[in-house]
C-alpha cells in the first residue's frame, strides 16, 4: 500500500460520516425559508392561544352594550368591541384557542382511524380490503362538506358534533392514502424477507410496514390540518358549530357578518386569523412534505429542459479545427494507429467528440460524470461504448444531442463535432433539426420510452413529419414500410397498437423503426437490448446490425456486456469513472487488452462454454466521481499499481496494434494478471465508500 493510498484511506472515514448522515428532518424544514416563516407565525399564534388564561385580557363573554362596536385601537379595546360590546382581542385569542383545539383534535382522530383502516385494508388485502374500501368509497361518494352537514343534521348543531363530523369526513382521505402506500409496501421484497424470517402478520405490520408508512401519515396530516381547521370554522360560521356564548373564530365571523356593512373589522379580523393559521400550517405542511418525500428531497422533480445546459465558461479544446474534410482524427494519435478500422480509416468522421465534460450539480457537490471524453466515429462504423453503471457511458451518449437532464446536468466543456459542426455551439433550432433527423436514438426500456397513450403508428408518423414535409397519409405509408423493415408481423394492424399491447421485443423494433424514420447518419443506442430476453436480444441485435450495414449508418452502441459488443461493434471504447481508459478494434480489446481494468472486466464475467474458468472478481469499487483521486482512477483496485500511477494526468496513448490505453503499465499481449485480488481481505476490508450517485445512474436504469 503506497503512501498516497493510505492518505486517502485515512481521510475517507470523516468524509463518509459527513456524507452518510442525512440532515435531520427538522433541519430540512427550517432550511426551507417559507416553512420557517410558517412555523414562526404558527408558534406566535399557538403561544398566544395557550397563554390566554394568564394574559391580561378582558373577559371574552362580558357584554357592555354601552360600548358596542367600538372601532380598532380604541381605549381599552385594541381591536374594538363587537355588537354586544365584548372585547374583540380577548374573544379573538380565546376563539383561536377553541378553533385550534377543535381543528387539531379532529385531525388526530381522522388520522388515527383513517390510518388504521388503511393499514389493515392494505396489508390484509382480499375480502377485508374490499369491504373496507367499498365503505370508504361510499363515504367519498358524498360531496365532502355535504356529508359533514348530514352528520351535523343527525347529531344536532354543536361544537363537539362539528368536530366529529369533520373528523369522520376526513377518515376516507387518510384511509385511501395510507392504504395505497401500504399495498405498495406489502408487495415489497423486504416484507417477503420478513415473512421468511418467521415473523407473523401482526409483527410485520407493526415492525416492518408501520415505520415506512409513518412519514406518509405525517405528510397527510400536515397537509390536512389546515383544511380541517378551515372546515370546523366553516361549520361554526354557518351556525352549526360553536353555540353562544361559546365562540370560535368561525362563529365570531358569522356573528360579525350581521354588522358587516357598519363594522367590517368585526368579521374581517377573525377571518384574517383563520387565514393566518391555515397559511402557516400549509407552509409547514409543504415543508414537511418536501423534507420527508424522498423524491422531492433529492430534487428529482426538477423539470429537465429542452437541452442540457451549457456552462458559460466552459472549456473549449483549443486545438486544430474540427476534422471534417481532413482524413485525420480529432485526436493527434488518431490517424497513426488508434482510431482505425480498415473500412473506415480514410473517411472523415461523422462524430468527433473532444474532451467532453458533463457535470452533475447536486446541492453543493459537483459530480464529474464525464471527465474529458474523446470519441471518433466514422460513417458506417459501430463503436461500442462499454462500462459499468456510473462509468459515464450513458451520460456521454446523451450529452451529444443535449439529452442529459438539466438540472442537474451541465456540459462543462468540450467539443461535440458532428460533420464539421460543433454541436456544443449550435443553436437550439439546429439541435432540434438534427435530433431524430441526422442523429437518432434508441433507448433501453422500450415500454418506458414510448408514449403510453399514443398508438405506435402515430408515434412513428410524428417522427417522420417532424422532419419531412409529408402528408399524413404518405407518412403513414412510410411508417408501415418501416415496421415491415424491422420485421414486425402484421405491420398494418400493429400501427394501431398501443405500446403496452406489444411484447418487449416488438416494442424495441418499433423504437428502431422510429430511429430509422428519417435515414439518420448516426444512431445512438443506449443499452437497447439490456431489458430484453436473450432470444429476443439476439434477434434485435442481428436486426440492428443488418440494418446499419445495409444503410451504412454509424452507430454509437452503449452496453455493459462484452458479449453484446463483440456481436455488433467494429471498435470498442471502455469507460471507467467518467473517462475512456482503453479503445481499439473489438477483437483486439477482447483478446489482448492493454489496460488492466479491461482485462479484469472481461475475466470477471462467466462465458458460455467455459464453465471451468475461475472468475476473478475486481476488488473494491469505483471511486466517487465527485472525489476522483489524482492519477489513475483505477489505481486503488489495480494489481499492477505503482507509485507513479497516483500522480499527474495519465493520457490516453497508443499502445500496440489498434489499442490506445490510459495506463502507465499496460499489459503485453496475452499477459495474465497476477495477484488477481479475490482475497477476503481486499473485498471486505476496503473502507466503505458510497457509490457515485447522480441522476445519470437512474436514467440508465441499471438498477431495476
Amino acid at each position: 500500500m503506497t503512501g498516497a493510498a493510505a492518505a486517502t484511506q485515512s481521510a475517507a472515514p470523516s468524509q463518509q460520516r459527513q456524507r452518510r448522515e442525512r440532515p435531520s428532518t427538522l433541519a430540512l424544514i427550517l432550511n426551507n425559508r417559507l416553512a420557517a416563516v410558517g412555523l414562526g407565525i404558527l408558534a406566535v399564534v399557538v403561544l398566544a392561544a395557550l397563554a390566554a388564561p394568564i394574559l391580561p385580557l378582558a373577559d371574552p363573554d362580558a357584554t357592555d352594550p354601552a360600548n358596542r362596536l367600538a372601532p380598532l385601537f380604541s381605549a381599552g379595546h385594541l381591536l374594538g368591541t363587537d355588537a354586544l360590546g365584548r372585547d374583540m382581542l380577548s374573544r379573538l385569542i380565546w376563539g383561536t384557542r377553541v378553533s385550534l383545539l377543535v381543528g387539531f383534535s379532529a385531525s388526530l382522530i381522522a388520522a388515527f382511524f383513517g390510518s388504521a383502516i388503511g393499514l389493515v385494508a392494505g396489508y390484509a388485502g382480499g375480502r377485508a380490503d374490499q369491504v373496507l374500501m367499498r365503505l370508504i368509497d361510499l363515504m367519498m361518494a358524498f360531496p365532502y362538506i355535504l356529508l359533514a352537514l348530514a352528520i351535523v343534521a343527525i347529531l344536532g348543531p354543536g361544537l363537539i358534533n362539528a368536530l366529529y363530523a369533520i373528523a369522520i369526513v376526513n377518515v376516507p382521505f387518510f384511509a385511501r392514502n395510507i392504504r395505497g402506500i401500504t399495498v405498495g409496501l406489502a408487495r415489497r421484497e423486504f416484507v417477503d424477507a420478513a415473512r421468511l424470517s418467521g415473523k407473523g402478520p401482526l409483527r410485520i405490520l407493526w415492525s416492518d410496514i408501520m415505520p415506512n408508512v409513518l412519514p406518509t401519515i405525517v405528510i397527510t396530516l400536515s397537509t390536512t390540518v389546515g383544511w380541517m381547521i378551515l372546515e370546523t370554522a366553516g361549520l361554526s360560521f354557518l351556525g352549526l358549530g360553536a353555540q353562544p356564548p361559546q365562540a370560535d373564530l368561525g362563529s365570531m365571523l358569522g356573528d360579525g357578518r350581521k354588522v358587516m356593512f357598519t363594522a367590517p373589522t368585526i368579521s374581517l379580523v377573525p377571518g384574517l386569523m383563520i387565514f393566518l393559521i391555515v397559511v402557516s400550517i400549509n407552509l409547514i405542511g409543504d415543508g414537511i412534505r418536501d423534507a420527508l418525500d424522498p423524491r422531492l428531497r433529492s430534487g428529482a422533480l426538477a423539470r429537465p429542459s429542452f437541452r442540457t445546459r451549457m456552462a458559460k465558461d466552459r472549456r473549449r479544446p483549443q486545438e486544430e479545427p474540427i476534422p471534417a474534410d481532413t482524413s485525420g482524427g480529432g485526436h493527434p494519435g488518431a490517424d497513426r494507429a488508434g482510431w482505425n478500422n480498415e473500412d473506415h480509416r480514410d473517411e472523415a468522421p461523422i462524430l468527433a467528440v473532444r474532451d467532453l465534460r458533463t457535470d452533475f450539480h447536486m446541492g453543493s457537490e459537483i459530480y464529474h460524470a464525464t471527465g474529458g471524453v474523446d470519441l471518433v466515429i466514422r460513417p458506417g462504423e459501430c463503436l461500442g461504448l462499454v462500462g459499468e453503471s456510473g462509468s459515464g457511458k450513458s451520460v456521454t451518449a446523451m450529452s451529444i444531442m443535449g439529452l442529459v437532464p438539466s438540472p442537474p446536468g451541465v456540459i462543462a466543456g468540450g467539443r461535440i463535432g458532428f460533420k464539421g459542426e460543433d454541436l456544443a455551439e449550435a443553436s437550439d433550432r439546429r439541435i432540434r433539426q438534427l435530433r431524430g433527423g441526422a442523429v437518432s436514438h434508441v433507448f433501453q426500456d422500450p415500454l418506458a420510452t414510448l408514449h403510453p397513450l399514443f398508438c405506435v403508428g402515430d408515434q412513428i408518423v410524428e417522427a417522420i413529419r417532424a422532419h419531412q414535409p409529408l402528408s399524413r397519409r404518405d407518412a403513414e405509408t412510410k411508417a408501415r414500410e418501416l415496421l415491415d423493415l424491422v420485421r414486425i408481423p402484421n405491420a398494418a394492424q400493429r400501427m394501431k397498437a398501443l405500446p403496452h399491447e406489444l411484447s418487449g421485443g416488438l416494442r424495441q423494433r418499433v423504437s428502431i423503426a422510429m430511429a430509422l424514420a428519417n435515414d439518420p447518419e448516426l444512431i445512438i443506442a443506449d443499452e437497447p437490448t439490456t431489458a430484453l430476453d436473450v432470444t429476443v436480444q439476439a434477434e434485435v441485435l442481428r436486426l440492428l446490425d443488418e440494418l446499419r450495414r445495409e444503410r451504412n449508418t454509424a452507430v454509437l452502441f452503449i452496453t455493459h456486456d462484452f458479449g453484446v459488443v463483440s456481436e455488433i461493434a467494429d471498435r470498442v471504447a471502455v469507460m471507467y469513472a467518467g473517462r475512456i481508459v482503453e479503445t481499439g478494434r473489438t477483437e483486439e480489446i477482447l483478446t489482448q487488452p492493454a489496460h488492466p481494468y479491461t482485462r479484469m472486466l472481461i475475466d470477471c464475467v462467466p462465458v458460455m462454454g467455459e464453465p471451468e474458468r475461475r472468475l476473478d472478481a475486481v476488488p473494491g469499487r469505483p471511486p466517487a466521481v465527485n472525489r476522483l483521486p489524482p492519477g489513475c482512477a483505477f489505481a486503488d483496485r489495480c494489481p499492477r499499481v505503482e507509485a507513479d500511477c497516483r500522480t499527474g494526468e495519465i493520457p490516453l496513448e497508443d499502445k500496440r496494434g489498434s489499442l490506445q490505453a490510459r495506463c502507465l503499465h499496460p499489459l503485453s499481449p496475452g499477459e495474465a494478471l497476477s495477484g488477481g485480488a479475490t482475497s477476503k481481505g481486499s473485498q471486505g476490508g476496503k473502507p466503505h465508500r458510497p457509490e457515485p450517485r447522480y441522476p445519470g445512474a437512474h436514467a440508465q436504469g441499471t438498477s431495476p
Partner: protein
Amino acid sequence: MSAAAPLIEIRELARTFGGGRTIFGTKKPQLTAVRGVSIDLVQGETLGIVGESGCGKSTLARMLVGLDRPTSGEIRLSGEDLSASGTKALARRVQYVFQDPVSSLNPRQTIREILEAPMRHLLGLGRAEREARLAKLIDDVNLRPEFLERYPHEFSGGQAQRIGIARALAAEPDVVVLDEPVSALDVSVQAQVLNLLDRLKRERGLTYVFISHDLAVVESVATRVAVMYFGAVVEEALARAMFRAPLHPYTKLLIDSAPVPNRKRERLAGDTGELPDPYDPPPGCPFAARCPRVEADCREAMPPLEAKERGEGHRAACFYPLAA
C-alpha cells in the same frame, strides 16, 4: 448423485392466478404461471433453473419457500409434504435470496435487526447466542462487524446482496433458493458474489436452487439444469451434458442466443420471440410456433418430460429432440 434420496421432491406443482367468476357470472381471465412441474433436488447439488421472462421460474421459486401457495401439486421436504403449510414451516429449512438486494432490506431497520429476525423468530435463540452467531455470519459474508449498526441505504448493491445472503443463512437452512442473485449487480461485483456463494456452499454443505436468465452464469455454477418455457420444464439434465448437446430445440435456441465475446453470429433467423397468450394457452407444445423442427403433432398435445436416448438423467419435453 442420482442414487441419493432427494432432499426436495416437487410433484406436479402448478400455480394459477386469477380465475373464478365475477358477480355477473362471467369468467375472470385466468393465467397459469406454472403448469405441472415435477423435479427433484438432491442434497449438495446446485440446481440451475433457466428461462426467459414469463416462464414461471420466479413463481416456482416463491412456491419453494412458501411465499406463494401452489394451486395444486406437492413439495415434499425429506418426504414430508409442506406445500400447504405456509412460509414459516418451509423457512426453517429453505431460504431465499432476492434479486434486488436493496429493496429486499427494510430501509428503516439496521442490519442487526434484519439479521437477528430469523434467529429470533425461526430458531428462538437468546441474546448471547444471537450475538455470537451474528459475528460469525457477518464475517462469513466478508463484511465488517460495525456494518451491523448501519442502515441499508449506506451500502452498495454488492454489499447489500451479501447482507441478503447473510439473512438467508441466519436461519441455518439446508436449501437456499437464489432468485437471480447477481443480475441486478454490476459485472465487476457479480463475480464477488458468485465466489462468495461458492465458498459458503462448500463450508456449510448447502444445496442451492439457482434461478437465472443468464446461461453463462448458470453454466458456471450449476451441477444440474432445468430449462423452463411457458410455465413448464422442457429439459432437465446435468449441466455439462445439457450445454454440450441439448435435446430440446428451445434449449438450443437459448444457448445460441447468449452473447459470447468474440463470436459472430449467423444471419437473422426471423424469430420474433413471441410467447403464446398465457390467458389462452395452445393445446400442444407452446414452443411450436417458434420451433424449426415443428411437426403437426407438436401442435396437438403437450409432449411429456421424459428421458430420451441419453439415459435417465437427461429428460426433455419434445417429440423430435435434437441428435447429439
